[in-house]
């Protein structure tokens, strides 16, 4: 084997074969080809057989994450939490509205047939679906209302839940996620540089939460009462339908 080859790398062997052929070195090429075949066989034998992984449906995975953080969340946060805490393939919800629409169809064709639905969070003022947020039908209605302070309180609540979960599982599970929370919560990054203490993060988030919680709960409860009075069962979960656009596209 020529000295510049990394050990038994299939790609490296392929390159070496090409180089030998190009250089017209037949004996070397023959020897390298044999090595390449052996390396390929070894690789194929080492690879685990494509085992049957039970695929968890997207809605189920989203449900697990939302149940963990307990507040409406954007797909990006859902994906990050899933990556940090739940094993298995990564989770991406590229179009949350599509998922919600599928859930809405299922709900409308057979109401309450499923134990839970991934549904919308509703804007407190218009009761329309809040953009880009996912929620669970099993939550109390006020949790699914988004008032003016709710984006912040939900962010802080998610920080508390994630920090507590991380503390249970061990500190390095969600390092990146915790850092992201800590960077934007005052007093959360009090520890050493580059590390985040889950307990300190939870405490800082709770401290800010205390400032907003009461007013936010009031706004949300009021919106939930209005929603209950105005919307039917499907509307309560998936929001009032917005008025359709009759004009041409929107200038961006």
């Amino acid at each position: 084997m020529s000295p510049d080859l990394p050990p038994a790398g299939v790609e490296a062997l392929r390159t070496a074969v090409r180089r030998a052929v190009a250089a017209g070195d037949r004996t070397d090429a023959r020897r390298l080809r044999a090595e390449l075949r052996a390396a390929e066989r070894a690789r194929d034998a080492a690879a685990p057989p494509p085992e049957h992984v039970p695929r968890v449906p997207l809605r189920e995975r989203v449900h697990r994450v939302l149940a963990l953080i307990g507040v409406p969340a954007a797909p990006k946060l859902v994906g990050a939490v899933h990556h940090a805490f739940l094993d298995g393939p990564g989770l991406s919800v590229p179009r949350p509205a599509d998922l919600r629409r599928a859930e809405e169809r299922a709900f409308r064709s057979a109401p309450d047939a499923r134990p839970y639905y991934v549904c919308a969070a509703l804007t407190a003022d218009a009761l329309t679906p809040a953009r880009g947020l996912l929620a669970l039908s099993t939550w109390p209605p006020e949790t699914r209302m988004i008032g003016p302070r709710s984006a912040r309180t939900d962010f802080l609540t998610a920080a508390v839940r994630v920090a507590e979960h991380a503390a249970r599982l061990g500190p390095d599970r969600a390092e990146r996620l915790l850092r992201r929370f800590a960077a934007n919560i005052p007093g959360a990054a009090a520890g050493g540089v580059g590390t985040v203490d889950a307990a300190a993060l939870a405490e800082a988030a709770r401290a800010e939460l205390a400032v907003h919680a009461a007013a936010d709960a009031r706004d949300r409860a009021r919106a939930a009462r209005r929603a209950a009075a105005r919307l039917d069962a499907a509307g309560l979960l998936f929001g009032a339908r917005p008025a359709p656009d009759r004009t041409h596209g929107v200038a961006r």
Partner: protein
Amino acid sequence: MTENTADTAPDLDRLRAGAPPRNHDARTIAALTANPGCARRGVLDAAGVDKDAVARHLGFGTPFGQSQFALARGNAFEAQVKADGCAELLTLLRDRLGLAVAEVFYDDLAVEDGESREARHARTRRLLARALDSAEGTLFDHPMLRLDIAGHPAYLEPDVIAFQLGGRFHVVEIKSFAVVDGQAEPEQVAAAARQAAVYVLALRRLVAELGHDPARVAHEIFLVCPEDFSNRPSATPVDVRPQLAVLERQLARLTRVRDILADLPPDLSFALDEGLGDAVRAVGARYAPECVSGCEMAYFCRDEARACGATGVLGRGVRDDLGGVDTVGAALALARGTAEPPAELAETAALLRTAARLRREALGGAA
């Protein structure tokens, strides 16, 4: 809508030959201020003609749009700053401006696709009215604003945030160009300031309509850009008063587009057929090399200006120096003394002759 503009609207509709009006956005409105002397652009924009389609029909389509990479980078940075109820932006505003911890109101005025622009504008009005009355509310994301452009309401869906601090609104514009050591590329900042000025103006009109003092919208905007070579956002205040002044003058001028229309043939239309070239040429343009970066018609106008030897091709500076001398040929004739200048151009002609003499001397008679 004023009486003055109401009766130009049918004329403008005719110019489009039945096509729906193109929407303005802050970019196109800001571009209006770039070349105020251009009647062609004024008329085409006022009528909402699809300039890109016109230029392509004439064989002068712009070969490239905005870079996909730049767009993707811009969107990613914006998403990062706005994630989780603008968590990063709040941190930034708390650090830089001492925003109180309790000021965390965030209203996303955009909704899922499918809602009409009128309904969204109404929602923006409702929430801003509440905020103006109670001084409650911090961040208003994606406000749907409206600005009357030559008698047509243009809806603006800015990717900006209206930010209320101490009862005053500021426009927060998120851009992905880097601010390195407190310095950013002046051209980028100027373009951002022009766009932001459009939003400030639209927001001021809205505040005035709601019965409040338009000065509650500050002329100081906040530009949020990545800091140095990181992805960390930084906020820089930018005073957009000069841009606002230019914009207001331009919009006033646009609504007087009737004066330009009066001089045009009554049956003029920009329908995409064989008469299009003549129709476009019927409206005078004022080409300058800078047009290429801001106007879809630029390549057509450049071709036209080169063909007739207009001085504008050599740049605005040259055109202004040669005030009154429209073509390169005329300028050369004056310089060589082969043409007799009219009285009002005597000074320019003398300068040109001096320049020609200096050039001859410098070249030692070689030219």
